[in-house]
């Protein structure tokens, strides 16, 4: 069994919940190497997603992600707004009109999301950004999908775990993109807030499928 629009709505709802629950933690992470707003921005953005979902329930997972892209783009602001906006838009395009997502389509959508972020933000792996959570997630999803057992839940779990590990792995890095790069070496020893929000969102995707 694949992932349908109900999963997508559950995913976005759980993501919104995660942003609200981790708002302070994300602000605190951003305070250390940025400007103390990432938690507020993401919370505001996903609250707007919920409002849009309630206003006009989407018919397909792709439609749900497109609506999410638009809401994030218009409500988050900062660096994260356009980056997540592009990510969800590219994922939505990748899914097209499908009503039921299999492991391959899922892995392709995750890759499209990551590629969108890189296209917009020009960050490479190791620059201490959300890309450092997305890239291992893309790889894990691809590997799980290639294993060919057809289990989307397994793909989602592998993705979430990889993103979480990727976020943790940003700790020692010196930032080379985004606001943390202004700090130079002082950015080492702190976790990147965008990588953490990415892990939270991908964990919510797995939670929604359980």
């Amino acid at each position: 069994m694949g992932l349908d629009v109900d999963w997508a709505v559950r995913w976005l709802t759980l993501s919104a919940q995660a942003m609200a629950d981790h708002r302070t933690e994300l602000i605190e992470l951003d305070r250390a190497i940025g400007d103390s707003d990432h938690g507020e921005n993401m919370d505001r953005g996903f609250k707007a997603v919920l409002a849009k979902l309630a206003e006009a329930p989407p018919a397909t997972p792709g439609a749900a992600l497109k609506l999410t892209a638009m809401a994030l783009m218009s409500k988050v602001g900062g660096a994260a707004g356009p980056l997540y906006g592009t990510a969800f838009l590219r994922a939505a395009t990748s899914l097209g009109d499908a009503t039921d997502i299999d492991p391959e389509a899922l892995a392709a959508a995750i890759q499209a999301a990551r590629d969108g972020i890189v296209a917009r933000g020009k960050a490479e792996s190791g620059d201490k950004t959300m890309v450092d959570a997305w890239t291992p997630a893309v790889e894990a999803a691809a590997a799980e999908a290639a294993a060919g057992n057809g289990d989307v839940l397994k793909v989602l779990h592998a993705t979430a775990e990889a993103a979480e590990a990727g976020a943790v792995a940003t700790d020692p890095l010196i930032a080379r993109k985004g606001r943390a790069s202004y700090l130079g070496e002082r950015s080492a020893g702190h976790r990147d807030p965008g990588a953490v929000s990415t892990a939270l969102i991908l964990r919510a995707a797995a939670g929604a499928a359980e």
Partner: protein
Amino acid sequence: MKKLINDPRAVVDESVEGFGLAHADIVTVSTEPKFITRKDAPVAGKVGLVSGGGSGHEPLHGGFVGVGMLDAAVPGAVFTSPTPDQIIPATLAVNSGAGVVHIVKNYTGDVLNFETAAEMAEAEGVQVRTVLVNDDVAVEDSLYTAGRRGVGGTVLVEKIAGAAAERGDDLDAVAAIGDRVNQNVRSMGVALSACTVPHAGVPSFDLDEKEIEIGIGIHGEPGRHRIPMENADGITNRLLEPVLGDLGIASGDKVLLFVNGMGGTPQSELYIVYRRAAQVLADKGVSVERSLVGNYITSLEMQGCSITVLRLDDELTGLWDAPVHTAALRWGI
């Protein structure tokens, strides 16, 4: 956190509303989406100037909307760049057909949001040029950073490009003047205390009684390094030297000297810094032709200041002197 606010999440809405009420003779405020335009926008035949960025830097940018400066300002949440759905309608609202210049401070968020907005405004038939401001010498401009930040120089770019637009320069010419100011301006700042973002509720960094942060930006972020507290002359030397070095200022140059308060520093202290900076420049044989001292680009209630130096030529001086009528900068009208 003690602030003159109601709801931390309503700070920008209510503040912009108050600003609109207090300056109804100069500006019009759109609330949904939020942006501020010059009362008589669009001005027929004139190139439109739009800037914007996170809130918390007041009077930037709203305080610079008016005759001779910006046509529109787009305020984001506190320290968060605005979104394309604000920037696009602001751009359309000030386009008289002569095109619009976006003045963008070089932060990833501002760049990405303005970039998207510019693309979409172009798709709606508006010609858009972007002037990127990146005057902060505290940040190395290299492959390994997001590049220099836009700080104090932004105010000067907005004033001078605004005067060029007001005298009737065309789109490319206005953008070129903006770029020229940016190429000739450098800044560096210091924080004596952090600021508290309303939605965060705690100071943006922790600094003890004997430390200061050198090379801060304007978002309450920590600076490049932390040093023991020094006196005003020592701090001024520290800020001014890299600014002058990077600009290559030499004897005989003419400059505008801008000492900017970060929001929580008394004016008397800014003049003590100005005094020292003026002495240093005089000693180097540099002529300070124009001055600006005060809170013009701030970080909420942060204590500290920045020093900005702009190399002047006759045209830039003339454009600086041209009449301006905004809430925060006004002369000649």
